[in-house]
C-alpha cells in the first residue's frame, strides 16, 4: 500500500498526546507545530487526542457552587454589551454621576461647536437646543431618570452614546457619537417598539462629526414601550423597519 500522507517515520508521534494536554515544553512545541503545518495525519491524530483530553475536564470531583456567584455574574453580564451580532445596550438601573458628567460634556461640547459653525442657525432651533440642555440638567438634578447606554453594531460599530429617559415628563433624549454619516438618500430612523409593533419616533440627524441627537416627547407614555431601535433606512418615509439595524435598547 502506498503512503499518501507524510511518512510515518517523520511524525513526532510521541508528542501528540502531550500536545493535546498542553504539556509540551517550548522546544517540542516548536517541533510539532512546524510538523503540523505539513502533516494532515498528525493534525487528525491531535484532534482525536484533544477530544479525549477535553473529557478530563468533567472528571473533577463535584463541588457545591456558591449562590452569590450567580448573583454577581448576572450583575456583571448586565453591565456588558454582548459582542456578537447585535449589541444590546443594557439598562443601568441607576444614575452614575460619572456617566452623566461625560454625557453632559459630550452634549455641550458639540453643541458649542455647532453653534459656532452655524452662526446663521435660526433662533427657534437655538431655543430648542436650550430646551434639550435644560431637560438634561433637569434629569441629572432629579436623579430618577433612566440612562440607557448605546453601543453601535455592524457598520456603526464605533458609535456610542446614551438614551436618557425621564418618565415624569415623558421625554427622552438620544445622543450618539461616532455614527457614520448615512449615504445620500439614507437616514437613521428611531423606532419605539411595543410588542411586535414599530412606531416611527423620528429621524436621527448626524452632523459631519458623527454626532447625533434627538429629543423625543411622544404623545403616548414611554412606559408603555418595550424597546427603542435605530435602523438605517433608504429614506426617512418608512412605516416599518426594513434597513440595517444600528442599535437596540430595551426599555423594561
Amino acid at each position, binding site marked *: 500500500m502506498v503512503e499518501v500522507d507524510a511518512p510515518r517515520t517523520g511524525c513526532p508521534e510521541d508528542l501528540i498526546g502531550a500536545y493535546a494536554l498542553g504539556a509540551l515544553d517550548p522546544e517540542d512545541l516548536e517541533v510539532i507545530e512546524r510538523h503540523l503545518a505539513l502533516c494532515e495525519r498528525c493534525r487528525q491524530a491531535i484532534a482525536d487526542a484533544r477530544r479525549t*483530553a477535553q473529557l478530563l475536564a*468533567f472528571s473533577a470531583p463535584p463541588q457545591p457552587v456558591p449562590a452569590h*456567584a450567580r448573583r454577581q455574574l448576572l450583575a456583571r453580564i448586565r453591565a456588558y454589551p454582548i459582542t456578537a451580532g447585535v449589541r444590546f445596550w443594557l439598562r443601568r438601573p441607576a444614575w452614575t454621576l460619572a456617566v452623566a458628567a461625560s454625557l453632559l460634556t459630550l452634549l455641550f461640547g458639540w453643541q458649542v461647536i455647532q453653534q459656532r459653525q452655524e452662526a446663521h442657525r435660526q433662533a427657534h432651533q437655538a431655543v430648542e437646543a436650550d430646551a434639550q440642555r435644560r431637560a438634561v440638567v433637569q434629569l441629572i438634578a432629579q436623579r430618577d431618570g433612566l440612562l440607557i447606554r448605546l453601543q453601535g453594531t455592524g457598520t456603526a460599530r464605533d458609535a456610542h452614546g446614551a438614551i436618557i429617559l425621564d418618565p415624569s415628563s415623558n421625554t427622552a433624549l438620544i445622543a450618539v457619537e461616532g455614527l457614520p454619516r448615512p449615504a445620500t438618500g439614507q437616514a437613521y430612523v428611531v423606532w419605539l417598539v411595543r410588542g*411586535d409593533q414599530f412606531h416611527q419616533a423620528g429621524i436621527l440627524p448626524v452632523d459631519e462629526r458623527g454626532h447625533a441627537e434627538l429629543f423625543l416627547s411622544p404623545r403616548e407614555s414611554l412606559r408603555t414601550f418595550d424597546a427603542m431601535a435605530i435602523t438605517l433606512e433608504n429614506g426617512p418615509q418608512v412605516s416599518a423597519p426594513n434597513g440595517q439595524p444600528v442599535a437596540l435598547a430595551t426599555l423594561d
Partner: protein
Amino acid sequence: MHLSQPYRRILQWSGLARRARETTTELERASDELLVQRVVEGDIRAFELLYDRYARPVFSLAFRMLGDPGEAEELLQETFVRLWQQAARYDAHRGSFGSWLMSIAHNLAVDALRQRSRRPQRADFVDLATFPFHDIDERATALEAAEVSELRDRVRRALAQLPEPQRQVIELAYFGGLTHSEIATVLGEPIGTIKTRLRLAMQKLQVLLRDHPNGALGDG
C-alpha cells in the same frame, strides 16, 4: 401585518416576540445548542439556563485546578462572562457545547496557574467544611446537565483503569498545567521516562474512552 426579514430580526434580538409566546418551561427543555443561539441574541434567560447546567462542572474543574474556592469562583464567573461575550464563536460542528465551555474554563485556569509562581495546591487536601460560603446554589446542583454526571462517571472510571503512575502524569499535565520537564522535576524522574509514560497513558485513555462513544461529545 407583513414582516420583512430585518424587522423579524429586530424582534428576535429584542426577545420581545419570543417573550410573548415562549414559556420558560419550553426554554428549559431546549438543547444547549438552541440556548447558545439565544445567548448570541442577548437572551439572559437562556444564559441562566446554561449556567444552571454547567456552573457546577466549571466550578468543580476550577477548584480542582486552583485549589482555592475564591479563585475558583472568579474563574467560574470569568468563564460565563466569556460565554456571554463570545457565544457566537461556538460552532456545534466542532463538538459539544459542554466541551467548548469546559475548554474555556481549562484555558483560563492554566493561565492562572502559569501566572502564579507557586504551584497548584492539590484540591483534594482542602477541607470542604472550611468553604467560606454557606449559600449553596441548589439550582446549579439540581439542574446540572445529565451528560455532565454521565461523563464524570465515565471518565473517572477510565482514569481508575490506568496504572497509578500513568494516571498521575495525566493529572499533573491536565489539572496542574505542567509540562514534561516540570512533571519530571516534580516526580524526580528523567524527562524521557515522563514523555514515554504520558504518551502511553494518553493512548490507553483514548482507547478506554473511545469504546463508549457518547453522542453529546461531538465525536467524529
